[in-house]
């Protein structure tokens, strides 16, 4: 064997190249794993977007959430515009209000109805600014509703010329998502609603997390009489219907603000977290590593904080991310039965439940708040799932 047959390999080609990675802290590691999960990143961006939408969105709208314009009630985001004359465009609303609009869909003013001829089914409108009259014949609309075939639905007569054709179906430029029953900008209200829902849910969930985890782990860990008494208290709180607390709190505090609703949510919701953590603790405290910790004399507090809570973190995080949606839901439910935040403030729940009453006529008033709720829920859920996988110490490798 000749040594000329051998050459030195470059160090990069060495097979036993010792793998050196920078050592990562626990949270760096969590972040590294979270980044790999596409769904979680989608969720995270969704959460960031909705927070930006709720916090900064209203700055870009010319209206405030309480600005009413009674001329423009229930205007949808998409409007059918008729051209009556050169430079004169109108939109006829669902409840027969005639609105003057510009060529590209901005609302200008409302026509006053000056004559109502119910027998011939003709309404006459006039614009206050110039007093010129527009006659609307809606006889065919009535026939169409009965299922008859009609050549056109509405006929407008303005300055002698008749219009029956829709000029264009355009989007509402003034109110992008339309207006509600009091002529308030729906987009602005959805933004404010998201803000209020986020505050209520976020504050309630974080407080619940702390109370629930401490209470549940103590109860489960010490067991015996302590557990019995603590769980009886939980049972008592949990067995009384939420509605009763809310009504009582509203009456006692005499206030329909955010604080009361958050307080009501806290009264009830920490209980679920406490039960979950207790259940987890019961299982974990008998595991070998807890026994090992005990034998070397680790204090009870350290066993709970170092061994039990980190190992129960998966279900706790899942439960936390479900708690935010569920707080939003409960708040929406309270709004639905008329116990939500007081007007003119509105949460997404209030908006959706207002919209639900009008779903047959103005479906857009339900759809937009409901979609925003859905967006919020999806984001939190995806993020929570990703976090669950990322936070689990048993998944750590290398």
């Amino acid at each position: 064997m000749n040594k000329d047959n051998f050459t030195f390999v470059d160090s990069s080609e060495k097979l036993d190249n010792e793998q050196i990675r920078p050592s990562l802290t626990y949270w760096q590691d969590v972040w590294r794993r979270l980044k790999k999960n596409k769904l979680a990143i989608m969720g995270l961006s969704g959460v960031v977007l909705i927070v930006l939408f709720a916090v900064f969105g209203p700055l870009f709208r010319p209206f405030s959430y309480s600005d009413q314009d009674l001329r423009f009630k229930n205007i949808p985001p998409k409007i059918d515009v008729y051209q009556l004359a050169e430079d004169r465009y109108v939109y006829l609303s669902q409840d027969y209000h005639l609105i003057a609009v510009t060529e590209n869909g901005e609302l200008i003013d409302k026509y006053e109805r000056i004559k109502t001829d119910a027998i011939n089914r003709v309404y006459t409108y006039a614009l206050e600014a110039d007093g010129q009259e527009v006659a609307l014949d809606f006889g065919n609309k009535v026939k169409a509703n009965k299922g008859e075939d009609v050549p056109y639905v509405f006929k407008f007569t303005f300055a002698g010329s008749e219009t029956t054709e829709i000029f264009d179906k355009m989007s509402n430029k003034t109110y992008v998502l339309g207006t509600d029953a009091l002529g308030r900008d729906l987009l602005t209200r959805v933004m404010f609603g998201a803000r209020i829902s986020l505050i209520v849910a976020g504050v309630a969930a974080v407080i619940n997390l702390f109370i629930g985890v401490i209470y549940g782990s103590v109860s489960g860990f010490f067991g015996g009489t302590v557990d019995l008494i603590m769980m009886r208290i939980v049972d008592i709180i949990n067995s009384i219907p939420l509605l009763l607390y809310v009504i009582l709190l509203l009456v006692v505090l005499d206030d329909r603000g955010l604080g009361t609703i958050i307080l009501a949510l806290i009264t009830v919701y920490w209980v679920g977290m406490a039960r979950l953590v207790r259940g987890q603790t019961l299982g974990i405290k008998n595991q070998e590593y807890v026994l090992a910790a005990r034998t070397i004399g680790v204090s009870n507090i350290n066993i709970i904080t170092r061994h039990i809570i980190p190992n129960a973190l998966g279900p706790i995080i899942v439960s936390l991310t479900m708690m935010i949606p569920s707080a939003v839901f409960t708040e929406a439910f309270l709004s639905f039965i008329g116990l939500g935040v007081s007007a003119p403030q509105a949460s997404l729940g209030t908006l959706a439940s207002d919209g639900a009453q009008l779903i047959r006529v103005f479906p857009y008033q339900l759809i937009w708040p409901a979609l925003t709720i859905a967006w919020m829920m999806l984001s939190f859920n995806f993020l929570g799932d990703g976090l669950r996988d990322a936070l689990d110490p048993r998944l750590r490798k290398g």
Partner: protein
Amino acid sequence: MVYYIKKLAASLVTLLIIITIVFFMLRAIPGGPFSREKPLPEATRERLEAAYGLDKSNFEQYVVYMQNLAKGDLGPSFKNPAYKVQDLIKLGMPQTAKVGGIAVVFIISFGIVLGVISALKSNTGVDYLVMVIATLGVTVPSFVVGSLFILLAQNVDFIPVGGIESPIAFVGPVVALSGYSLAFVSRLTRSSMLEVLRQDYIRTARANGISEFKVIFKHALKNGLIPVVTYIGPMIAALLTGSFVVERIFVINGIGEYFTASVQNRDYTLTIGITIFYASFYIFMVFIVDILYSFIDPRIKVGDR
């Protein structure tokens, strides 16, 4: 055995405390059953209150109420004096329980199966699909689902708009009622199964050549179901005793509807009656869950607590 009897006794004490708390809570709310927007004449109101014993002190009323309760009498409803509270509960219960029962069966059978499938196929297309479906369930509030369903029913002939007279009419209420819990159960099952499947004993079981079916259903599922059982117990109590929202939207004359109305009308006896009913049912379910715990996971030993 002694343990369970102790547990049962503790449950009864809990119930007693709840009744007491609710009784005094309701009387702390200003306004009574006979205060209206247009006030009744003073004399009439006094006689009505005397007839129902409302002129006595709270404590005396409480004693009388508890005595009647011991005989199984929940007293007359203030708003419908012709009915006893227990009769109203009997009237409302069947409708509520029918819808709730179907929802419970639906949730447990689908939720757990979906969760297990998703955990076994974790991070595959199947997993994502199941989780997206499950997530959709928690994204839309039940009153929105209900309203959309009513909108659908108005345009389709074969689905009735309200009530639960025909089998097809159950679809709307059951879907609206179970969406959230179904999603929760499947996600909880998934997350807890994932935990369990990583444990050493599962690897040992697999290494011993036990069939995959047995590993999952006999070894993994038993431990994986512990958090799920914790949730399902109270959930059953909640679903069977009614949802205010779903009953209101679908015009079901169930307990939830009675309860909301009773709180708004300050119909004390009816509110307390329904609360007692709800609470006893709930406590019973928690009791059952506790017993189930020790069956599913022998590590949670009765004596340890």
